[in-house]
């Protein structure tokens, strides 16, 4: 029989100490607060909006404006974004018929919706709102189920080419919490009570509109050509 390995007991002690240190670190990681939180129902100051009324896509001279009140964590909004919006963009926005205005309307039932809206606002600071907006919607099923979505959004910030340090600072500051709340308040005042809701020609449409219905609504609002 081979002789016992010298110093084996000491090794077990060291290994046990390493194991204890590892367990302590894991316990710390489980217990530490998770990520950025964007306050809800903040008092909106005039400086929060400073004239900002949503994210615009399309020609400022377009004859029809469509405002979409949406929530990044709402499955119906994701559905509209992925299925209907590409046609809307191609047929109505790119052709100069429609100016699209995206308004945040994060619902209380969706825990990460406000953080997602803030992540998109921080991307807007670096002129990458629509890139971040599309990526957040495209990966909704991924970030919706994590505990700390802000860490996932930080990865997305890198993916869309943002200066991640600047983006992270923006997220930590929660500086757009008031602006998001202002958008929610305005939506409530207009009568929005679910997402997505569309404001077209002064009328609210709370059902998910297909691109065909939208096209018909927009066509009806277009100025008639003079004979």
């Amino acid at each position, binding site marked *: 029989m081979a002789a016992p390995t010298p110093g084996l007991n000491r090794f077990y002690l060291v*290994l046990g100490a390493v194991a204890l240190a590892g367990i302590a670190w894991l316990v710390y*990681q489980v217990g530490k607060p998770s990520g950025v939180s964007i306050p809800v129902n903040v008092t909106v100051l005039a400086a929060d909006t400073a004239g900002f009324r949503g994210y615009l896509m399309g020609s400022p001279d377009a004859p029809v404006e469509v405002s979409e009140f949406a929530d990044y964590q709402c499955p119906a909004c994701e559905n509209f974004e992925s299925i209907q919006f590409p046609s809307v963009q191609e047929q109505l926005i790119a052709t100069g018929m429609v100016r699209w205005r995206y308004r945040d309307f994060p619902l209380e039932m969706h825990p990460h919706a406000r953080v997602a809206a803030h992540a998109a606002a921080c991307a807007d600071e670096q002129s990458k709102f629509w890139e971040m907006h599309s990526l957040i919607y495209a990966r909704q099923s991924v970030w919706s189920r994590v505990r700390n979505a802000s860490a996932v959004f930080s*990865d997305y910030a890198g993916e869309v080419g943002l200066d991640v340090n600047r983006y992270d600072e923006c997220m930590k500051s929660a500086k757009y919490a008031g602006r998001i709340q202002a958008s929610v308040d305005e939506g409530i005042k207009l009568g929005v009570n679910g997402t997505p809701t569309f404001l077209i020609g002064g009328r609210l449409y709370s059902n998910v509109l297909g691109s065909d219905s939208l096209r018909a609504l927009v066509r009806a609002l277009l100025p008639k050509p003079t004979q």
Partner: protein
Amino acid sequence: MGIATLSLAGLFIAIYMYLYKIGKIGSLVCGTGACETVQLSPQARFLGVEVALIGVFGYAVMLLLALLALQSRFAGPAWPSRLLAILSGVAVLFTAYLTYLELFVIHAICRWCVGSAAVIILIFGLSLRDLRRVPVAS
């Protein structure tokens, strides 16, 4: 001893990843890497099982085998060392596959996965070295 220490390190990495995956940890300490992107990708599951969980079991078995191999009664037949070499060899191949997925499918690199890859390669190297030391039974 080296294999046991490395297996313990690998076990903690795998547990850390798994705790994140099941939502017990809010965010991964990842520096500038894209750990969340990798961990939340569809490729983080293999045949319906979380890759991190496979890691937890794999490293736990290797730790057990490494501790057994240190016992003098296993010095002769040395089946724990042989099993360790086989298991870590398979793990190296699996890690190579996962690294391929990170680079060419997910297009993101997770530093913890790189750490785990380094650990498993070292374990495999040490287990091969240990095999050479073991007298082959005739």
